[in-house]
């Protein structure tokens, strides 16, 4: 990978493909069994990366920047931040 001249993410999905390369520490994982669909995560997510289906909430990693606000705000403890393996 070579860096661009102007710092920027020029393609979506960089989080899902390589959190390590982007310098991002962790991605959210949702435990569907504990999720009550209260949608606190949906409200708090600053990048609208949380999507809601009939069964459970999910996170679109293309839009997620790994801030962890969802995991902090979830009242059920259903979201944990999983470290991207190998991140320095």
């Amino acid at each position, binding site marked *: 990978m070579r860096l661009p001249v102007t710092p*920027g993410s020029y393609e979506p999905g960089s989080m899902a493909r390589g959190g390590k390369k982007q310098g991002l*520490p962790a991605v959210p994982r949702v435990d569907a069994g504990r999720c009550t669909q209260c949608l606190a995560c949906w409200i708090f997510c600053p990048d609208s990366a949380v999507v809601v289906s009939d069964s459970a909430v999910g996170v679109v990693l293309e839009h997620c920047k790994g801030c962890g606000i969802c995991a902090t705000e979830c009242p059920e403890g259903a979201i944990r931040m999983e470290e991207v393996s190998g991140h*320095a």
Partner: protein
Amino acid sequence: MPEKLSLTGNQAAAEAARLARVELFPAFPITPSYPVMTSVIRMIEDGRLEARFIRVESDHSALAAAVGGSLAGARTFSTTNSQGLAMMHEVLHYASGLRLPIVMAVVNRALSAPHNRFADQGDAIAQETTGWLQLFCESNQEVLDTVLQAFKIAEDGRVLLPAMVNYDGYILGDTPQEVDLPDPARVDGFLGSYNRAVLDVEHPASLNPPTGPGLYTEFKFQQHAAMRWALEAVEEVSAQYGRLFGRDWDGAMEGYRADDADVLLVAMGSMVAVGRRAVDGLRAAGHRVGLLKVRCFRPFPQEELVRRAREAKALAVVDRNVVYGLGGALYREVMMSLAASGVAIPVVDAIAGLGGRDVTAGDLESLAHRALELAAAGKPGGEVMWLKLNDDIVGEEALPWIGLR
């Protein structure tokens, strides 16, 4: 057809912006750079320049608008000075970090406090680590030529950095001189059009993303490398401009009667013109004194300075700025360059012309005489003097430091 006009430095900067066909001009008025703004606006109103002027509520916003326009691919120009430049400080880093070739006329004026509106290069020196190229001009013709060159250098694919074109407020800014306007078609041929839209609706991007310890250093190194390329681009563009328009300003540094000199004055900005007269006077009196004119302060032409100073017996630096507790910024660059190359000669620095105080050829002759004394003594090292400091009115608590080297 070439055209000669009587133009102030501010008008010359505006004419250069017109010849460069700038597309975007966000600016906020401040003395003494506001005539650049009014001149460019009049050109847009008259239809002589097809550009968008953005009226903003502050200098900070002016540069923010410039950043947005440059990201969208517009050739972007602005102007400011002193407090306005200081207010832009935060955004200066965005412009360089995002690698945007914005060109700005900086009409050097003293910073408050105390309030002062006159010529002083401390405003530019305070921004020396913002990643902008900093070019300094001696005459209004050089202002026009340097604005055109600055676009060419800044837009060079190896460089892609913003550039400040500096000239002293009032002394050049508001004083008319004869300026030769190059032929617009030839300027078009020299400059070409700017075509680097980072923002593209077909290819959306998230710019200036949070960048952690894993990548920040690499982006900063890229800026450092671009600055190194800039020094090469300054020389190439200056030579190319000279071939096309008959005026070669000698790239990053010019020598005046410097080749066989025992003592070299080192100066930048309008002070260089005074230095030339001092050199002529000293030569007429039989002293081998020359001058080095620093056109490019950032990046600093360290190797060229050492090459030109190697044969001299002493240097006399003139600084229209002060790095408190140390001396002048130009003095610091000179001392560092010499030390890095193992050149051991005496250097005297004069803090001179702060806040618009007049500096005459006689003043610089006396400075050169001090350097000749040091050359005769042959003892390497540096000393800083405050030219024409009035000892009689300096406060009691500062008195113990007068005359200490």
